[in-house]
């Protein structure tokens, strides 16, 4: 309808405002009456208009009067107004569906197609009038690599209420937490020297903003030392990485939980345990980093048990699941080097893992004997007749590593041996129908010790090796995956 006009409230340094501008241009080119309202000064606005080739008028918003009157919370904010300036429709952020709906209302063809390279939806930035006045002067004029999130609010426990009990009630976790007082959060922020409002990632499946300040508050609750912030920042980037697919990992009915593997010098600097009891509660660093990640996933990602987290049996790793590689006991390249980083670089790796399945092998005296024991555990990952769709991490204990290395196996030899020797005998498929049976036409038939078998894994790369644990005891562990590969969750490694 020609009598309607579209007002778009924009910021010049907001990536979502930049994303939406070509679509607003298209609406204007089609004949829509579009007016932009910039929340920034004239200089920044004219640069924005020139850079983005804006084809509609852009006015200023002195003192944010219009933004305040309209109650803008997030930009870009779109308002369809009738002749009496009444709001007919309003939208915030970027959504292709909303833009196309607006086009229909304005008697125009759709402006956003599904595969034009832009996402279907992208949240916007906080309106300028809701930012702290002191920050405006110091904030860089245009820093697209440093988007900011919303400042955390403060909450108050009642006068008579124990703060720990208040945290149980307000934050709904099943374990006690250290109350995130502003002083404790400030100590975390001091250790990292970053703007508290810097947005590190959005945590699936609810995509809550993981700002530095929110990460710090959850790190306090978990009991992290302030220096752990430098591990938490890349860890949050890793968990928000689309390849890891936290959206699925957090919502599945399966057992999967994010396992953190720490590599490099940071293990010593922050006292991570990579030796005895590596999966247990032996070191504050492991326990609190794993717990902090879980709190971030719950509090910012929103997948609470029996709400969005639908795991049928759950996983003890959802309390905390963090190991470090025992690089000193390994004759081979550590995991992060295999993943393309340099040895002196510290790193975090995330893997959607089942609970560890122990492999005790005290009697074997050869590499082949030890690896055979491990291959039988690997063959049962996910379900004994299901092949190809899964991967696994093998955590090799130092005593097993010594036996294997003594027989001249490189790390690549180990992965290849396990790949070639892990399979499911064809006779297992003769009985009842069940998991993995219907897919057998896709499986590859091999012979293991003369017996016809289906090969369990797709390639040796689907078996990742990590050396960890104490030097006494001939044990290793197999950790199965969730749905693997681009259609499920992929292992991700981030430098610290």
């Amino acid at each position, binding site marked *: 309808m020609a009598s309607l006009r579209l007002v778009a409230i924009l910021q010049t340094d907001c990536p979502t405002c930049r994303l939406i501008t070509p679509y607003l241009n298209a609406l204007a080119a089609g004949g829509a009456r579009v007016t932009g309202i910039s929340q920034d000064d004239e200089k920044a606005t004219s640069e924005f208009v020139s850079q983005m080739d804006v084809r509609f008028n852009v006015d200023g918003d002195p003192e944010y009067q219009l933004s305040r009157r309209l109650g803008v919370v997030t930009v870009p904010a779109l308002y369809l107004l009738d002749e009496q300036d009444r709001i007919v429709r309003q939208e915030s952020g970027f959504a*292709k569906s909303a833009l196309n709906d607006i086009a229909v209302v304005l008697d125009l063809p759709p402006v956003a197609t*599904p*595969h034009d390279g832009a996402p*279907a939806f992208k949240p916007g930035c906080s309106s300028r009038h809701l930012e702290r006045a002191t920050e405006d002067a110091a904030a860089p004029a245009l820093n697209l690599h440093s988007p900011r999130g*919303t400042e*955390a*609010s*403060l*909450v*108050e*426990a*009642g*006068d008579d209420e124990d*703060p720990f009990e*208040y*945290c149980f009630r307000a*934050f709904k976790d099943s374990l006690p937490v250290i*109350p*995130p*007082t*502003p002083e404790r*959060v400030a100590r975390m922020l001091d250790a990292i020297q970053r703007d508290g409002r810097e947005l590190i990632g959005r*945590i699936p499946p*609810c995509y*809550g*903003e993981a700002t530095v*300040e*929110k990460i*710090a*508050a*959850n790190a*306090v*609750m978990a009991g992290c030392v302030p220096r752990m912030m430098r591990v938490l920042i890349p860890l949050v980037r890793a968990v928000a990485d689309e390849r890891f*697919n936290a*959206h*699925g990992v957090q919502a*599945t009915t399966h057992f999967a939980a994010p396992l953190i593997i720490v590599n490099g010098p940071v293990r010593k600097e922050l006292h991570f345990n990579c030796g005895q009891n590596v999966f247990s509660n032996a070191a504050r660093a492991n326990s609190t980093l794993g717990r902090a990640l879980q*709190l971030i996933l719950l*509090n*910012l*990602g*929103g997948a609470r048990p029996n709400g969005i987290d639908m795991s049928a049996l759950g996983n003890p790793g959802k309390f905390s699941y963090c190991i470090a590689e025992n690089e000193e006991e390994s004759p081979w390249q550590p995991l992060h080097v295999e993943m393309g980083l340099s040895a002196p670089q510290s790193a975090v790796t995330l893997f959607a893992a089942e609970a560890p399945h122990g492999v005790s092998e005290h009697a074997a005296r050869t590499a082949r004997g030890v690896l055979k024991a491990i291959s039988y555990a690997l063959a049962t990952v996910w379900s004994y007749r299901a092949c190809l769709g899964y991967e696994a991490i093998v955590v090799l204990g130092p005593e097993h590593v010594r036996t294997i290395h003594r027989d001249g196996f490189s790390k690549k030899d180990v992965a290849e041996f396990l790949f070639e020797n892990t399979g499911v005998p064809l006779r297992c498929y003769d009985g009842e129908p069940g998991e993995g049976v*219907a897919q057998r036409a896709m499986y590859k038939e091999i012979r293991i010790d003369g017996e016809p078998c289906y090969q369990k894994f797709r390639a040796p790369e689907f078996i990742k090796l990590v050396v960890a644990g104490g030097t006494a005891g001939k044990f290793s562990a197999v950790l199965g995956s*969730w*749905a693997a590969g681009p*259609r*499920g*969750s992929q292992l991700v490694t981030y430098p610290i």
Partner: protein
Amino acid sequence: MPVTLVNPLNEAVAQAQIPAPRLVRLQGKIALLDISKPGGNVFLDRIEHLLKERYGVTEVIREMKPTFAKPAPPGVIEKIRGANAVIEALAD
């Protein structure tokens, strides 16, 4: 003295969506969405048969997510947009 704490939770307010009006009768376009779980096609084949035979539905769209482990890509959503109803096969 009351204790002040930094709010550690996601503070974004979820926008409530009004559910689409319930259908009075089955007519027009009905979409059947398979999320790629094993057996989804068996279930939806039967549903399609019943819709056509018992309820006289003439237009059935069959769509499939590439993986159950991730949200439906925009292309899949686009194809079922505008259907009067969507029946989704969710489980194994």
